[in-house]
């Protein structure tokens, strides 16, 4: 941090909040708000004369509330920059600090929040994590029993610069606890709170236990765990060493802690799974290894930066294996525990990766993007004719479309990721997607349904999930009937309802539309756009007189080959159960209505021509 502060090319903005982010890769504009410190950065030299005279004491956040701090304070002794700040919510404006500051005259109560725009090429999000509040888990009595503490509190108690100067004492009677128990997975691997494994808690608990045991070899230390997870280099060896030095590891997750009100000692109820027996362990101090949880402002940040979140609530990476440092928005990168719980080496590695990837953009004069972006036919867009529309902009997950009344909608290619949601949603067929044009997809559809259409299942698939699922079915040799015909688009959002109408108009037996599960969508909200659309479509098809079984919507992940095969098998079975003659009659009945709905299709540039080629 000190190095960063001193670096000529790094400007450190502390006590500053990101308010808005606009623009795109290489050309971001960021609105930041510098909060008032009430201390002048250029005058304060961090001498600390002000704090001792301040009469206000509030719990010190850095010390986990175990020690007080003043209303004028630095967060901790290594703070960078070493400048004081006034906690205005607690300050009583006695101005004693102003007197203490004296000639430096660094205190200025007239400061106001300052907003300014920054021009940046790339953004790295490294906002870290919060610690789970174990008082939610009432069975462990945190907050009710004095001697149940969290690991972070122990870290402070055990720190020579901490509130006890490194003396380990327990809160109830300020005595040294000889018997201590650690409980793992508090708030993690628990479907009531967080399903994920926080990953690093096993190691830091072992570290704390070892540190304790080295200082006090007589200490009686027990660690209750469900599974010990020490997969990184050197970690398992460390765990083995901890076992060898006499730290007791008990497999079994305690369900309840009770307190002896006289001694303040705690009784832990657990099953020793190895023994298969119930045990009651008396302990003088209990330390809870709490889960890492997403920061409280993660949701706000995700909407400011337009990046999505994984099911656990942390920021989502572009690809879990191949692009773990990139966010779904180009030019925005993720580092550290903001992306998911991780330990220090992994955070450093990801931070270095993010810095390198961010620097690539800063050094580039030109930036290549995927060619599959959306394109607006300006003459077809009704916004250009002065009418109010803007549907495309509301459906875009990346805010890549700008609509101004009187002007045609404009797609910013650098922000467009090519999901095609806007193309399918445009009610006037005024947008197309490069390489996935209506003409191309309709030509595929016509070719696939050229012969015996009523015996075919048309399966629209998204590139990332359901197409991967179909691929997985193939490579895993999950058999499914040969009646299915697939059409791949980038996202289920690109699957235009007109394609479904056209498939039925051509006499297709069955139509499947498929995409990712909602939380896996590659294009943030593409699946949701599609899901809404298909819900409406299913009703409309039924109203038209198409048997509801002939249209199916399924969310299939790339790993669900078996599910894909199963869906096709089921659909094939339904198709076979239909009377072919009745099916043909049904198609004839609905054809006029479908033709009426599809009348505009041939107006789309190139569609008529493409279809001619199919039949040539």
């Amino acid at each position, binding site marked *: 941090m000190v190095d960063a502060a001193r670096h000529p090319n790094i400007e450190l903005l502390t006590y500053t909040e990101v308010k808005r982010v606009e623009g795109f890769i290489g050309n971001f504009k960021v609105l930041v708000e510098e909060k008032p410190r009430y201390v002048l950065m250029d005058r304060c030299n961090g001498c600390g004369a002000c704090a001792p005279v301040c009469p206000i004491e509030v719990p010190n956040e850095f010390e986990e509330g175990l020690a007080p701090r003043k209303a004028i304070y630095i967060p901790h002794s290594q703070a960078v920059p070493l400048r004081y700040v006034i906690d205005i919510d607690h300050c009583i404006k006695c101005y004693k600090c102003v007197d203490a500051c004296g000639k430096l005259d660094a205190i200025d109560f007239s400061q106001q929040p300052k907003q300014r725009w920054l021009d940046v090429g790339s953004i790295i999000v490294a906002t870290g994590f919060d610690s789970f509040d174990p008082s939610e888990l009432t069975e462990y009595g945190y907050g009710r029993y004095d001697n149940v503490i969290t690991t972070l509190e122990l870290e402070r108690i055990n720190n020579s610069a901490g509130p006890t100067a490194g003396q380990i004492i327990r809160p109830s009677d300020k005595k040294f606890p000889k018997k201590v128990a650690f409980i793992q997975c508090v708030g993690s691997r628990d479907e009531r709170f967080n399903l994920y494994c926080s990953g690093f808690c096993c190691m830091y608990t072992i570290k704390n236990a070892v540190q304790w045991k080295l200082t006090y070899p007589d200490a009686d230390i027990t660690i209750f765990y*469900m599974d010990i997870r020490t997969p990184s280099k050197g970690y398992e060896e460390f765990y083995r060493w901890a076992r060898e030095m006499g730290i007791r590891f008990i497999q079994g997750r305690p369900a309840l802690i009770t307190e002896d009100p006289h001694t303040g000692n705690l009784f832990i109820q657990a099953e020793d799974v190895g023994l298969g*027996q119930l045990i009651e362990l008396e302990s003088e101090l209990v330390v809870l290894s709490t889960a890492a949880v997403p920061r409280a402002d993660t949701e706000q940040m995700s909407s400011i930066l337009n990046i999505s979140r994984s099911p656990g609530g942390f920021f989502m990476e572009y690809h879990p294996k191949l692009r773990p440092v990139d966010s779904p928005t180009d030019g925005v990168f993720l580092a550290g525990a903001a992306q998911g719980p991780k330990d220090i080496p992994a955070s450093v590695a990801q931070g270095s990766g993010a810095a390198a990837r961010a620097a690539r953009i800063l050094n580039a004069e030109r930036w290549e993007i995927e060619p599959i972006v959306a394109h607006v036919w300006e003459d077809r867009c009704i916004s250009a004719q002065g009418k109010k529309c803007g549907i495309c902009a509301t459906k875009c997950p990346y805010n890549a479309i700008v609509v101004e009344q009187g002007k045609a909608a404009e797609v910013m290619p650098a922000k467009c990721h090519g999901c095609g949601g806007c193309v399918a949603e445009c009610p006037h067929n005024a947008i197309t997607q490069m390489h996935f044009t209506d003409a191309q997809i309709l030509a595929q559809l016509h070719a696939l349904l050229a012969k015996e259409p009523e015996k075919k299942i048309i399966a629209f698939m998204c590139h990332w999930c359901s197409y991967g699922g179909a691929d997985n079915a193939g490579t895993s040799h999950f058999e499914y009937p040969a009646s299915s015909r697939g059409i791949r688009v980038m996202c289920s959002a690109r699957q235009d309802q007109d394609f479904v109408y056209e498939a039925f108009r051509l006499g297709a037996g069955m139509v499947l539309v498929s995409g990712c599960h909602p939380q896996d969508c590659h294009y943030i909200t593409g699946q949701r756009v599609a899901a809404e659309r298909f819900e409406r479509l299913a009703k409309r098809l039924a109203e038209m007189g198409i048997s509801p079984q002939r249209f199916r919507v399924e969310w299939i992940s790339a790993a669900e080959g078996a599910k894909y095969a199963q869906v096709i098998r089921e659909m094939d079975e339904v198709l076979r159960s239909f009377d072919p003659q009745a099916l043909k009659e049904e198609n004839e009945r609905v054809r006029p209505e479908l033709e009426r709905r599809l009348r505009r299709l041939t107006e789309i540039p190139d569609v008529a021509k493409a279809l001619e080629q199919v039949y040539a």
Partner: protein
Amino acid sequence: MSNPDTIDPKFKDEVMAELGGEHLLRCYSCGTCVSMCLVSRVSSEFNPRRTMRMVMLGMRDEVFRNPTIWMCSACDLCYPHCPQGIHISELMRAIKNIAVRDGYEAPGPVAVVNEEECSGCDVCEKACPYGALSLVTKVFDGQQRKVSQVNKNLCMTCGICAAACPLSAITVEEYSNEKVAAQIQADGWLTEPAQRLPGEPQLLVFNCSWNLRADVDRAALTRFPPNVRVIVLPCSGRVDPIFILLALKSGVDGVLVAGCQPGQCHYKQGTRIAQGRMRILQQILDQMGLDMSRVRFVQIGTEERGRFPALVMQMLADLKARMEPANITA
């Protein structure tokens, strides 16, 4: 997995297909359920985690032959603590259902209805937390009559029905009225003046079997002074008001009935039933002109370490403070 020939790999699917068994495979043997379980506390052979493991491994015969699968009383103390959200009592019920279909039976003992005495009034059916009692029509001496019948596989022998029956026609063998009375009177506690400490009140305590989790509290049950007599019953719902009236009549100064906290009752609603009964009893005592405070009903949470002994000592002190010749037969 002792013998591969007896392994039924489909067993887990069968349990999971049963209502309540859906989430079986989520269990990763953390032991939370066992550490919360009061049955495991009392009899270490009962281990729901191990049972689930055995089901997963397909040890069908071993699971069904194990008498402990019938011991889960569905108190659901474990369920809210399970990190995987498995409803363990429902899962145990799914196992029991399959066992019943396979022809296995709960080993008992169960409540026994004296059919000659039973009037078919249906009070027991309404009181039973498990729906183990139902009325059936039988022929006695050529006459059709409705009598209560016990479903052996559902009865948990809590004895709530025995206390509820107005004709005392239901008996739970181990805790029959006669045996409870004998326990109260053992060693001449009521009659022998030698048992009475001079100037000290006599206190009779009925405690349920499940409200004490801590070892120290369980040990305390046997360490009270001789003027305190503790009778342990399966449930506070087993306490028949007759016991209390007879004790008061025999000169006991006070009666303390302790059950589980509502929501933690081992037999689902036993503690609530007891609460209602005790309230009515106190009103009756009041109408009789007796001091209501001589009968107390308390509900103890399983994690309230040290509360039970403290309550007993407190009541003893209160009784002593109001020591005056008790006018019981008034």
